[in-house]
């Protein structure tokens, strides 16, 4: 019959070298077709996701109305909160944006906005930033290009925001369990022990018989796609490098401790392994359950529970990438969905504040050792240089060599800006940030 059946038979019946060769060349072709501007430095992104929204005035934008003192950093003129001492010693590796101005006053709305650049619309689902980057950049080395760890225990709602929507399942993130849990393993990436080599061969032989009649009559594009995915799945399952990328036991105890042996630390360590192996976009979402949502006891939460792991892990991640020569090609974004109110509430907490907040960037061609934008005296509003979510996206796209002005068509023919900014405009790269 048609060509795809031939290749499928080859794949199922040939020795492993044969079909691995076949699919790898497919990858190489895909990689060759993927045009990335030569000037672009970055080829992958790590999103260090600070779920719940850190208080900007207690972290990267110290103010008199914070109960924490500003401290000097290794970059003259830049001060950050005393809660981030490790970062302060490495400020030359980071760029801060203190003038983020975004939408969404509650977690779902703001998270959706931060992850897709669009406000929630019940008429359609928007593809995530990570999905678009995955599509634009293409896979590398048979490693899943888009990974999220850990996935949420309680609700799939946030996970859905990270999905590809109409772009298609191949750009969905692979969502994996908490890498800091004992016995962490990525499901479906290795054959069950009960399945021997012989079993694999006999499964294939049976499948050929069972499917022969039906597929001879019905050759559809879906079948061809499924065959391609099956080939890719075999490739992943049988390629040690892919399994290794997810295998944190290959890291030394010292390295694990450097990142922190909690969910925050280990998900960033895994992100580094994945990016090193070939992933394009990894979300390290160790701060789960709206961790940063300090509506009560803000100071205690930030001091005891939240800022120390951020300080430790973010610094370790950037240092480690730097030591491995990966910092130039890996763009790190550390942010939540909004900041927190500059005024303290009756529960000694701080509430949601999308008006003006801060984030940190490093690597991937970002000009480090600087602050972009500023807030007013108490951190209520942007004083200089509003940066929108679309501007941030445009900056990251540009660093990756992706055309940020692109619009993609939704299934009903509505053009969707990939860098959607305020007031229905396209975001502009923050030129100060790009080296």
């Amino acid at each position, binding site marked *: 019959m048609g060509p795809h059946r031939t290749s499928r038979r080859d794949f199922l019946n040939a020795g492993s070298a044969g079909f691995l060769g076949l699919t790898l060349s497919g990858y190489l072709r895909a990689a060759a077709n993927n045009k990335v501007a030569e000037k672009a430095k970055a080829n992958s992104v790590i999103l260090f996701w600070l779920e719940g929204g850190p208080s900007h005035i207690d972290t990267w934008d110290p103010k008199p109305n914070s109960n924490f003192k500003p401290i000097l950093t290794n970059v003259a003129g830049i001060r950050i909160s005393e809660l981030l001492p490790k970062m302060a010693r490495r400020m030359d590796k980071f760029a801060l944006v203190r003038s983020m101005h975004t939408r969404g006053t509650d977690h779902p709305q703001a998270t959706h906005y931060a992850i897709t650049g669009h406000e929630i619309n019940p008429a359609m689902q928007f593809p995530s930033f990570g999905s678009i980057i995955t599509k634009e950049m293409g896979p590398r080395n048979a490693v899943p290009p888009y990974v999220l760890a850990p996935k949420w225990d309680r609700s*799939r709602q946030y996970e859905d925001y990270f999905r590809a929507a109409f772009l298609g399942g191949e750009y969905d993130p692979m969502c994996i369990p908490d890498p800091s849990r004992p016995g962490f393993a990525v*499901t479906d990436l290795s054959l069950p022990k009960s399945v021997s080599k012989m079993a694999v061969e006999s499964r294939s032989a049976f499948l050929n018989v069972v499917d022969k009649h039906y*597929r001879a009559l*019905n050759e559809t594009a879906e079948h061809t796609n499924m065959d391609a995915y*099956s080939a890719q799945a075999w490739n992943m399952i049988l390629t040690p490098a892919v399994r290794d990328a997810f295998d944190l036991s290959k890291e030394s105890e010292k390295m694990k401790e450097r990142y922190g042996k909690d969910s925050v630390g280990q998900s960033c360590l895994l992100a580094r392994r994945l990016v090193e192996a070939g992933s394009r976009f990894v979300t390290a979402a160790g701060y789960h359950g709206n961790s940063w949502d300090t509506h009560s006891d803000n100071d205690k939460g930030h001091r005891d529970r939240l800022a120390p792991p951020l300080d430790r892990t973010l610094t370790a991640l950037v240092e480690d990438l730097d030591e491995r020569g990966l910092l130039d090609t890996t763009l790190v974004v550390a942010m939540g969905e909004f900041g927190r109110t500059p005024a303290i509430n009756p529960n000694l907490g701080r509430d949601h504040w999308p008006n003006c907040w801060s984030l940190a960037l490093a690597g991937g061609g970002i000009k480090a050792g600087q602050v972009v934008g500023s807030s007013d005296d108490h951190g209520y509003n942007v004083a200089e240089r509003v940066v929108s979510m679309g501007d941030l996206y445009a900056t990251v796209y540009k660093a990756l060599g992706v055309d940020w002005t692109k619009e993609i068509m939704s299934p009903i023919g509505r053009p969707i800006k990939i860098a959607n900014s305020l007031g229905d405009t396209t975001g502009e790269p923050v030129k100060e940030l790009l080296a």
Partner: protein
Amino acid sequence: MKLLLTFLILPLAVAAGERFVSLKTAPAEVVLSGPRATQQFLAIATDAAGTERDVTGESQWVVSNPALASLDGARLKAAADGRLTVTAAYSGLKGQSNVRMEGTQVPRPVGFTREITAIFTKRGCNSTACHGGVKGRGGFKLSNNALYPKDDYEWIVKGGGYQVLTNEVKGERIPRIDLKHPENSLLLRKPAMQTPHGGGKRLEADSEDYRTMIEWIRAGAPYGAGQGTQPRLVNLEVYPPMAVMPDAGRRGLLVTARFSDGHTEDFTHQVLYTSNDSEVATVNADGIISARRKGETAILIRAAGHVASAGVGVIGPVIADYPAVPRANFIDGYVFAKLKKFQIVPSGLSSDSEFLRRVCLDLAGALPPPKRARQFLASKDPNKREKVVDALIASPEFVDYWTFRFADIFRVSIFSNGLSSKFSEGYWEWIRNNVETNRPYDEVARERISAEGYSPASRHFLPYNQIGPPGEVMAEEVRVFFGRRLDCAQCHNHPYENWSQDQFWGMAAFFSRLFKMGPVVFDHPTNMDLSSKDVDGKIELLHPRTKAVVKPALLDHSPLEPAPDGNPRKALAAWMTAQPYFAEAAVNRIWGLFFARGIVEPVDDFRSTNPPTHPELLAALAKDFRGHHYDLRHLMKTIVMSRTYQLSYVPNATNREDVVNYSRSLPRALDAEVLLDAVADVTGVPETFPTAVTEGSSVGQAPEGTRAVQLRDPDTFFSRFLEIYGRSNRGAIPERNGKPNLSQALHMLAGDTYAGRLGANNGRLARLLASGASDTEIVDEFYLAALSRLPAPGERNEILNILSRRGGREAGLKEFVWALLSSREFAENH
């Protein structure tokens, strides 16, 4: 391939003239009115089999009285009032049209609404890609296809730039015409490229259109001659409405504009033609279609705010012995008539196995158990198909399955229904009760649209426990019950449709008084102030651009003045369910679930630019649905009892490529929930669903034996399988696409859904082994369970051979079951 039918195929290139039996001209009768009136004619030759061919270009055209009018090819130009005939002659055949001309001497100055906007449309100036885009282009905005000529006129004669989110004019207002020096008008200099123009050269300075425009400016750029009395364009008519032609054939279209005073004009050369699929057919500026390859598409025709379409079918070779196909009900009449026209022969009737599996999956979301399959296959009862349909429609599985389907469309989820499982469950139970009692669908719709208080149906107004913005709430009701997507019109006039921003907000205003106090949903009275901590009391809806207060108005612009303390949505619900749109959208949605594509596809995207594949069928189904009091079960039975539904999936030489005409059953992937239930049924190992947590940290689980389609909302119970196969979170109206992905492939190879079940010691395989069944019996039983058929003798032998070569009986059988579950025949409904 003995399964494929063979047909006698006739060579199409018949020597011209030998086989044509008649020639006709179109239009046969026509009145040309007004100065400069023209009429395009077509000559159509018909052969003995009734096949038509456009021979306009090859015919000799003669006019009976050259003093009254002249002919340019087949286009008549009126010069004086009177009567004449136009005759076409082709290979010995003649066709004739009668023409009357009137008002040829009545002067008529060029007007904006008529001549000028027509040029904008025809030249593509006001297309969505150019100035007709949402924001215009290069600072100059025109309404798409001259939908809003008043606005266009303002931007031209007053100047200035349009802004999407406000009514304010951007920039300085410099007119785009120059009355003193017409030739200096930007409106001419730009398209003629005398001034740099981003859109390139669009107009030659010596063209007729250029002359028309300059004449209009010289005349003072009037909006319209005799404004107010001038007849309005009512609609566009296309001939032929469906052009059927052979591969590489050509065929002309005639477009007639009908005006409010009853007169018609030939618009064939004044409209913009676009092909929906230029792989199948292209169309030129004069409306001549060229067939490119076998298939079907539509030609869209745009003129001054109106859109019409003509279907195009590019057919294969003519089949000499086209078989008679039996018809079971009215559905078949429409479907098979079109197939014959397109020279596509439908597949044969499905086998009993095919039918049983398909109808069980489609009506009850479940595979027939092997015992039931054996009974059905063995039965000699000529009415066994109808009996099984009746049994399925009366089954509890039917209720489960259709509750699941409507829970999807109506969006049952904790997040969408007030952030409480109490609310989402109540809403789900309301849906289930409606399905169980087969409540008329119009009643269901009315209750949902006008729901209030604490009622379960009102819970869908509470995403994240808040009342959504009026525009979004309205757009969702319109999409669900009208199958139309108004969303685009929220921020701007719809780019392709006749939906204006004003219409959008008029409809939205029905929901603008919707408030909640605690969990109680109510319509804020306009004559009282209920402001409180919960209710902000701002009950006026302001138009986002004009900032004027918007009053509720129906899509047909008729305003409704709801009582100040009433529920305005009741009137809206009554109006909506009485519209033809309502029944059409409902039957199309249900049809789509049985055929893997709607008559309009996507099922909730009705637009004039997305025409139905079978308009008469859609209308007939809607009429039948209304006539049976919106009875969904009756509709479903009508569908599954048609021969169209019962055709085999096995293609023949003529219908292999067809995916839109229902000439065979189109295989489609099972949806996540149905597939998981099928895997559980075949293996005999039910799924357990842990409560709202990922694997490994369960705090509870759904009752044993719960099926995936019985899960009430996507948030309470976790299932990796369902995630991987695309269960919807119902955050938006789900659009399931059944597309494969890498995670599915990985899961199939290594996932516990398969591996765990094959290893289970209480499943179907373990039971069969314990019963002492032979290999043949086990293989047959699994074939029946998974595919509702027995293996063909050859298949069975091959499987038994592999088993015996493999050794290790139990391990071998598990591998066989894995293969069965991994096959496409299993994973699809066909």
